[in-house]
């Protein structure tokens, strides 16, 4: 934990930065060069395997997305250029799914951030039964998503479910679009808030106690200490937590698959891709959607890293700005 050693907040980190850069330009000696070559050689097998298992499928799906490739019509496979992209991007179902995905992502991540922060503070401050508190908070995250989703589904099914009877007055909420999306979002929040809390708690550990005490001495209220001291210091941890959760939420599949299977226009982009790829056997259109999701995820990551300055956990806080 290099963070714990450096005492200062975000401003100090920026001031230190220039000192680190000059050494990169120095010429390498013979020994150093040989060492580097050996290093590359040792890395090579791992890189080759990564290229085979991660790189090749990506390239292959891009290639598939440029073809009419439908397992139902094997003799009509042909290269169609960007036709599949035009088809998907001009299709109402795709944009509906995109909209549903964005709504679920934004709403669930926002609520998770607030709840996660509260949980993190509780876990951080607890003095008695710390183990019990932390463990019980993490239970939802420990349950297999599909299993949890099934219990949500039964809970919301009229006749068998306690939630449907008590909260929805016996209405089949999962068969209507807006209520179903709300239920899916709720299940998602319940499931992943602990994960958010865990990441934020790691951030809380960065906040030096002395700083908080000093602020208190200067007359800052609890809220001011939270907003003006804790949040700025925690910013890298918050951004990482947000990035992870946004990427995760954007690819939502298992909860939706069990709860609505995408009926009544509740498909997310992943659900839609699955339906076209696995159910529809349309490798062309399905791969096009996969590639589009890949691009969307890349954009989200880019925005977080470049615009908000999120740094990978472990690297220096606020390193890139």
């Amino acid at each position, binding site marked *: 934990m290099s963070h714990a050693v450096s005492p200062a907040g975000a401003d100090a980190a920026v001031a230190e930065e220039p000192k680190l850069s000059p050494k990169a330009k120095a010429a390498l000696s013979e020994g150093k060069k040989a060492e580097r070559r050996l290093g590359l050689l040792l890395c090579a097998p791992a890189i080759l395997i990564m290229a085979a298992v991660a790189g090749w499928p990506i390239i292959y799906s891009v290639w598939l997305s440029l073809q*009419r490739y*439908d*397992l*139902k*019509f*094997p003799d*009509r496979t042909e290269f169609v250029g960007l*036709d599949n992209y035009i*088809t*998907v991007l001009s*299709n109402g*179902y*795709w944009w509906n799914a995109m909209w549903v995905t964005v709504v679920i992502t934004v709403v669930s991540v926002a609520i998770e951030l607030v709840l996660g922060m509260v949980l993190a503070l509780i876990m951080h401050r607890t003095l008695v039964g710390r183990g019990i508190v932390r463990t019980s908070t993490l239970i939802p995250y420990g349950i297999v998503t599909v299993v949890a989703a099934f219990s949500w589904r039964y809970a919301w099914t009229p006749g068998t479910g306690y939630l449907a009877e008590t909260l929805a007055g016996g209405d*089949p909420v999962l*068969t209507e679009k807006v209520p179903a999306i709300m239920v899916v979002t709720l299940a998602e929040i319940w499931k992943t808030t602990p994960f958010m809390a865990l990441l934020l708690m790691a951030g809380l550990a960065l906040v030096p106690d002395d700083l908080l005490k000093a602020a208190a001495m200067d007359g800052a209220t609890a809220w001011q200490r939270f907003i003006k001291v804790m949040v700025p210091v925690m910013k890298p941890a918050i951004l990482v937590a947000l990035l992870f959760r946004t990427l995760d939420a954007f690819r939502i599949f298992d909860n939706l698959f069990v709860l609505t299977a*995408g*009926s*009544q*226009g509740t*498909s997310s982009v992943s659900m*839609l891709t699955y*339906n*076209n790829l*696995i*159910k*529809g*056997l*349309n490798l*062309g*259109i399905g791969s096009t959607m996969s590639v589009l999701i890949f691009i969307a995820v890349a954009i989200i990551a880019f925005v977080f890293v470049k615009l908000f300055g999120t740094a990978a956990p472990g690297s220096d806080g606020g390193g890139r700005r």
Partner: protein
Amino acid sequence: MRGTGHRLAAAGGAALIATSVLAGCGSGDGGITINVYKYPQESFQKIVDNCNATADGYQIVYHKLPREADGQREQMVRRLAAEDTDMDVLALDVTWTAELAKAGWIKEFTGQAKSEVEDGTLETPLDTARYEGKLYGAPDNTNVQLLWYRGDLVPTPPKTWDEMIEMGSQLKAQGKPGLVEATGKQYEGLVVLYNTLVNSAGGQILDENGTKAVVDDGAVKALEVLKKFATSDVVDPSFSNFAEDQARLAMEGGNAAFMLNWPYVYAAAQKVPDFAKNLKWAPYPSIDAGDEAEVTVGGINYAVSAFTQHSEESFDAVMCLRNAENQKFAAINDGVPPTIESVYDDPEMAEPYPMRDAILETLKSASARPRTPAYQNVSTVISTILSPPASIDPQATADRLRTELQDALDSKGVLP
């Protein structure tokens, strides 16, 4: 009651897992194993045992597929796409023939096997196993919906949809149960209902070759009938959420006078004797007076995987699994209508199958669902666009169907 049911179901589930694990162990003993993949059918293991007793040089092993049709298709299709050699015989829904045949995943029935299947099998189910003039399956069971009605409320069953809606309204006006139950949920059941209406109106959804979306005047007429029904006062308020079983339970619950459903409801009703004694059946209502309804045919055909390593034994196993004796056994024990005509005349069928003449009669004028390799897409498009049926706007809905169905046929469509 409910608690016991659940516990039984759990025990059943555990037993299922145990048997499938044991079956998995047993298949490695050197002899030829014919792996049959079929939906969970209660007495099917008995049929397999019967066949194994007489099988020459091979043993059949029954692998249960998921309960829902989508799950069954997905599992088989995924393994077939990967050219899995461990699947030999597949129980296919009648609507999957074209897709699997076109993809080259199932074998054609030729020569001896073909003539054996065609001999004595009813024409309508047999036709569902054909694609582009070739035979790709052996019909195991078939199915058609009938009109079920309350004999104590309705002296003579209605002949047309208009009559049925009229009768229901009158019953309601008298303060009696008058609802009409049908499958309006966004799934295959809605497609079955719509397909029956289109064919009864003399219309077409796709052309003969299944390459062009027609959606002609008959199809528009069918939309009008569906819309009229869905917005009438005899439709169940939950119509747009009802699959077969919910419709059946609603009728058993006592609010409805009519129901359009498969024959299994007769066997199921026997658990409610007060209701069963008044449950009567009649041919499906038509659209125009004097016309016959052309009811959508359902059912299961056996196909042989193109990747099997034991082709001869697989065809042999299919012949045994679907022979007259075993079809009768399944009809009596599982309530699935046979596809071999002579089975209907068997005296043992009279008691569990009092409606067999109505089924035979309906089968003769029955209609198939659109025949195209893209059926899954076609079906999804239809059920999505028709949901909920009350918001159908006949001409506009027909136009939308035509465009989106054509896209689906050209692999350009996006599945919702």
